[in-house]
């Protein structure tokens, strides 16, 4: 748990961060978002005191760490930034081991921790341990950067637009990975971004800042459905609010039992292992054949967002998608009627 109390930063007579108070529960993924220059980075960097506070208090667990020596505090807090800042003269393993080394862990423990983290990010330890940063792709370097920040099991992980500089495809992959890593490690995260889609994808709570002021701190769904003031809905953007909402909804929430009997308006054919093979009916238009083969692309998984499921329905012009488990077996279906028939 980490709590900010009345965090304020002024430069001369310019107030850059004004009296921000918020509490991030243990294991929560909290996102700071807002327009450029609103004070996100300043707030984040005050937490690990890269920027000295003008006033306010910071509690880590139940401990007031406002007066703790900065270096000691930082070793308890992970920090990952957009420009990564890997040490170019050290190997990947040495980079990841920075904080454990500062904390004087025994070397065997450090070595196994490094391998564990490379594993967590699906980087082959044997291959990557001894590489130098310049031998990594942007995406790999950013994974190493986050692994380094997580190395000493920090009480909270601060991330400042970590995926801001990678290409959209890699960014998507890294976001998914971040979600998985967060689920697996349960680390408390404070994540800065100015991309609402990224925030909706990752956050369990969103703090919206404007000109140094905390406008609303809430669960994503509340931010979308119950904006505290006009600025919130303006910032989120009204045009694709429906889609944004669906990006916070999961297929398993909309999943219904799949019909396999021949007399329903549409039904699935499955093979001996239970994989869906064909759909009968279920197409909204008459100009397509009544029986179509199921391809990998028009299936859904329980963990997929409803936004993506809807996008697949639109693209393949079907009103229904099979929901499959990890082994590819049919476990349910989501339908267009199902999406429409529920308050998002």
């Amino acid at each position, binding site marked *: 748990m980490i709590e900010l109390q009345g965090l304020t930063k002024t430069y001369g007579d310019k107030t850059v961060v004004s009296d921000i108070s918020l509490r991030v529960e243990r294991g929560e993924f909290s996102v700071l978002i807002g327009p450029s220059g609103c004070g996100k980075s300043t707030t984040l960097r005050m937490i690990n005191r890269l920027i000295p506070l003008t006033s306010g208090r910071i509690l880590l667990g139940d401990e007031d760490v406002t007066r703790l020596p900065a270096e000691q*505090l930082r070793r308890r807090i992970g920090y990952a930034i957009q420009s990564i*800042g890997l*040490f170019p*003269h050290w190997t990947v393993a040495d980079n990841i081991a920075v904080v454990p080394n*500062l904390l004087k862990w025994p070397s065997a423990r450090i070595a196994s921790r490094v391998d564990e983290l490379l594993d967590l990010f699906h980087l082959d330890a044997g291959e990557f341990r001894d590489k130098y940063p310049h031998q990594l792709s942007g995406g790999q370097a950013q994974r190493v950067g986050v692994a380094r920040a997580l190395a000493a099991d920090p009480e909270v992980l601060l991330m400042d637009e970590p995926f801001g500089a990678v290409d959209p495809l890699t960014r998507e992959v890294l976001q998914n990975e971040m979600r998985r890593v967060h689920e697996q490690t349960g680390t408390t995260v404070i994540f800065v971004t100015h991309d609402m889609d990224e925030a909706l994808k990752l956050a369990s709570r969103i703090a919206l800042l404007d000109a140094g002021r905390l406008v609303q701190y809430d669960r994503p769904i509340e931010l979308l459905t119950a904006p505290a003031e006009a600025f919130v809905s303006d910032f989120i953007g009204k045009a694709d609010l429906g889609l944004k909402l669906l990006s916070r909804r999961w297929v398993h929430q909309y999943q219904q039992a799949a019909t396999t009997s021949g007399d329903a308006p549409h039904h699935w054919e499955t093979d001996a292992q239970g994989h869906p093979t064909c759909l009968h009916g279920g197409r909204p238009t008459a100009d397509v054949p009544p029986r179509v083969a199921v391809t990998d692309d028009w299936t859904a998984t329980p963990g997929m967002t409803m936004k993506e499921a809807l996008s697949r329905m639109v693209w393949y012009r079907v009103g229904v998608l099979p929901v499959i488990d990890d082994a590819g077996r049919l476990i349910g279906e989501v339908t267009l009627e199902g999406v429409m028939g529920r308050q998002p």
Partner: protein
Amino acid sequence: MNHDEHDGPRRIANRVLATLLVASLAGAVLLPFAAMAPNRLVSGESVSLLTALRPWQTLGLAALAGALALACLVRPLGERRGARLTLVAAPLALLLTLYGLGDYAQRALTDASPAARVSQGAAFWVLVFCTSLMIVDAFQRLGSSLWLRSGYGLLLVAAVAALFATGTFNALSILREYFNIEDAFVDQFVTHLTLVGLALAPTLAIGLPLGLLAHRRPATRGVLFSVLNVFQTIPSIALFALLVAPLSALGDAVPWLGALGVAGIGAAPAILALILYSLLPIVRNTQAGFAGVDPATREAARGMGMTRQQILWRVEVPLALPVILSGLRIVTVQAIGLTVVAALIGAGGLGAFIFQGLGQYAIDLVLLGAVPTIALAVIADFLMQILVAVSRPAGAR
């Protein structure tokens, strides 16, 4: 690399080599290879390459010239294989030239009076100079690693040393001069190196912190660099001379400094002047080295909880080191050269022979000061290059 701007097929792949080859041939034919004098003080009569060398030596040089001519051409070898051939033929030509000269001196002096002298002529210098440049050029074309170059250079130095050790050059005037002053030579050589060392140590002790200061406090840069720049613009002789008066006053006024050797004449002003010349490159490169460290790296180091000292020694210094050492390389070579001038104010060093020789019109004595200075500078430069390469972080090599 060499684009022929004329029409028609390109014949010459390496114009540098071709030019050097033509220059060496012209030099060898037109200029005197050696000079034979009845004694040390008169300038002797010229001896051409053809008369000085034995037929097999001349033929050998001609064959090597043919090989080098082949190495210039587009066909049949081309640039890279031509460069490899050059790396074989040019050093052989160089060694043969050296050996030929020593051999000639021995033959010429067997029946001459003990005072007679044989010295090297312009053609000899042209050949040595051109073949050396051919080797440098070939390495550049091949883009060979520093390690390969070092090994090759070491081999060549060993071959030349072997020629010296076997007494090949003992009959030459310059070596006879050397035997006359052997003890003094060793002394001055050591003095030369000592002066350079005594200047570089304080330069580093002062320059590195100043460079770090200039990096951390940008406001200090203007003053610092303009002051250090002033010293760079004062000609060396003038700077040595300017220091004479204040240092002799200081040595007189503060007896214990005087006892330490602080005086207007001698090592003290020389070392001080060398320090003043060396500071700017060290300070500037140190500052540039630190400035070259990616701010993101520094930010990450701070964010991880490294202390200032840890950031300095574990991150900034290792990353800045190659640039700092490049500064040291410049300064070392420069100091070796400048120390020659220090002989003028009585500091000693190899310059002593140069100025003494100039005063007596004894060219051999001048060379005895100049050639080792050049060799020292070249070797120091090479060693520093290796040091710079080694200091480059593994990740950036």
